[in-house]
């Protein structure tokens, strides 16, 4: 994505690059004078981009650097900040909660992927059909994406109530469990809720991708006598390779940072069975007032996120631009 557009820009710029002052950044290159055409920078363009650069620099890039700096300090959130070298790091790495949180993140990533990917592909393929009612279904599928995690967590909490929820409403005794009080059941609940919330998004991605597969491929397979299942495995699935990489990247990096739902639903409990690393980081910093240790945990999250994103891309054998969705 990066290269073709950059090339196009390159060509376009040569046309009106005349009456401007060259900026410091372009000076060394300009002096060489071997470029096919020079690209002086419009002062007005710099000014237009300045507000966005300023905001992004101060409230996104600075915090990113800041978290690394803060991980070498001790700070209780109110008083003075002291540089204490590796103290916060040794503290963070020696705690069992850190490793527990890390293990839970891995569990979350693997389970989320295994649960959501096959379902999203199936649903996306189904929705990609040309029948009109499928567009209506797509509209309804989208609804969970509109609701806040707080609203979703609260809804499922009462839905799972053993006495006044689904279990008694549908008269299904096996649903009558202490869902949030058992360390295994609570994970089933979390995974299902998170799937409920995010499968629609991945379904939409796959729907779009399946619709772009040339119809002629399916028609040819039809003539060759391939059934629906065979078509799915021999055409649809291979054609979805790049979408699978995109979707998996977003899913994996997303699973690394689930916070809202778990915070509202379990607060990390019962015990510490759902205290995954992002939640552990929050609790360490904002409840335990150990901002230095929390920052060290945050750095681990950032590194893990970048590593996973690159890893998934590498696994898929492509260097296409990394996670393109929101980090929110």
């Amino acid at each position: 994505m990066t290269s073709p557009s950059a090339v196009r820009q390159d060509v376009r710029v040569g046309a009106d690059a005349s009456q401007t002052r060259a900026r410091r950044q372009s000076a060394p290159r300009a002096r060489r004078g071997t470029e096919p055409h020079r690209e002086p920078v419009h002062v007005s363009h710099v000014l237009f981009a300045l507000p966005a650069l300023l905001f992004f620099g101060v409230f996104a890039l600075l915090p990113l650097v800041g978290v690394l700096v803060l991980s070498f300090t001790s700070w209780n959130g109110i008083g003075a900040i002291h540089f204490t070298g590796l103290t916060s790091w040794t503290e963070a790495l020696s705690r069992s909660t850190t490793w527990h949180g890390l293990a839970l993140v891995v569990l979350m990533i693997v389970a989320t992927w295994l649960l959501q990917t096959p379902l999203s592909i199936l649903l996306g393929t189904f929705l990609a059909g040309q029948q009109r009612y499928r567009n209506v279904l797509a509209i309804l599928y989208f609804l969970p994406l509109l609701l806040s995690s707080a609203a979703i967590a609260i809804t499922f909490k009462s839905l799972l109530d053993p006495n006044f929820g689904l279990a008694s409403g549908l008269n299904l005794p096996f649903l009558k469990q202490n869902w949030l009080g058992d360390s295994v059941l609570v994970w089933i609940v979390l995974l299902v809720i998170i799937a409920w919330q995010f499968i629609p998004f991945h379904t939409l991605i796959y729907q779009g991708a399946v619709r772009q597969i040339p119809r002629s491929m399916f028609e040819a397979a039809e003539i060759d006598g391939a059934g629906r299942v065979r078509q799915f495995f021999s055409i649809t699935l291979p054609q979805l390779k790049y979408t699978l990489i995109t979707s998996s990247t977003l899913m994996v990096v997303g699973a690394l940072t689930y916070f809202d739902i778990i915070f509202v639903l379990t607060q990390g409990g019962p015990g510490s069975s759902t205290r995954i690393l992002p939640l552990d980081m929050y609790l360490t910093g904002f409840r335990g007032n150990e901002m230095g240790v929390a920052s060290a945990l945050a750095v681990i999250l950032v590194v893990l996120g970048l590593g996973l994103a690159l890893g998934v891309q590498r696994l898929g054998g492509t260097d296409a631009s990394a996670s393109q969705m929101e980090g929110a």
Partner: protein
Amino acid sequence: MRRNWIGGAFGWLWLVAVLLPIYFVAITSVKSIATYFGSNPVLPSAPLALENVTAVLEADFGMYLVNSVVVALGTVIPLVLMGFMASFSIVRGGRRFFGPVRSLFLLGLAIPVQATIVPIYLLIIRLHMYDSLAALMLPGIAFGLPLSILIISNSLRDVPRELFEAMDIDGCSEWQKMWRLAFPMTRPALVTVGVYQALMSWNGFLFPLILTQSPDKRTLPLALWSFQGEYATNVPVVMAAVVLSSIPIIVLYALGRRYLVGGMTAGAGK
């Protein structure tokens, strides 16, 4: 063509799974507490208990709604304007300077927001903005910029070059080209960005949690959370709060579905 039974069965099953919780919230929100304890949980029951809505409104939900609207507008309007202006420079400016600028913003897509909460908290305290609605807008704008710039600059590239050249001949400044030509031409992308970021801001939980403290600065998701703590025993009232806090965003979806889906899948779709 043979029918796709597996996919079909699955599709309808998923529809039930999607709608069941939403249906449950809707019917429970209009049950009185007595009917809630007495009736079948998955069946609607008359008479409608509108006192739940009154209870929610009496618990200051009107104020939380206003807070959410203020934060959403205060985030989205500057975000769209700044994102648009930066995109204009990235697309129209030279590659030498703005190529790296573009890469810098794209890098922002890979930053996990959760990991930056400690420094953002520190920053907001030092700016003496802790516990204010403005504190929620600033990081919202910053982290919204990368995706916004990606969407808007993709749309700007489709504006025919000849139109810009025509304005050159007329002696127009870059400022005029930006607002008279580029702005109207990219309006759909701007709406997409606006609607999508409004949703993000509306549902945001983490920043309100760490950057505000007093009840009168709460936005809806945070209010919902503390509300369910206070009203743990009165589920219908909590469900009414869930409904009321979700209605504005569902209206937004009804009005701008195309734009919202576009925003969500931008970059992810190919």
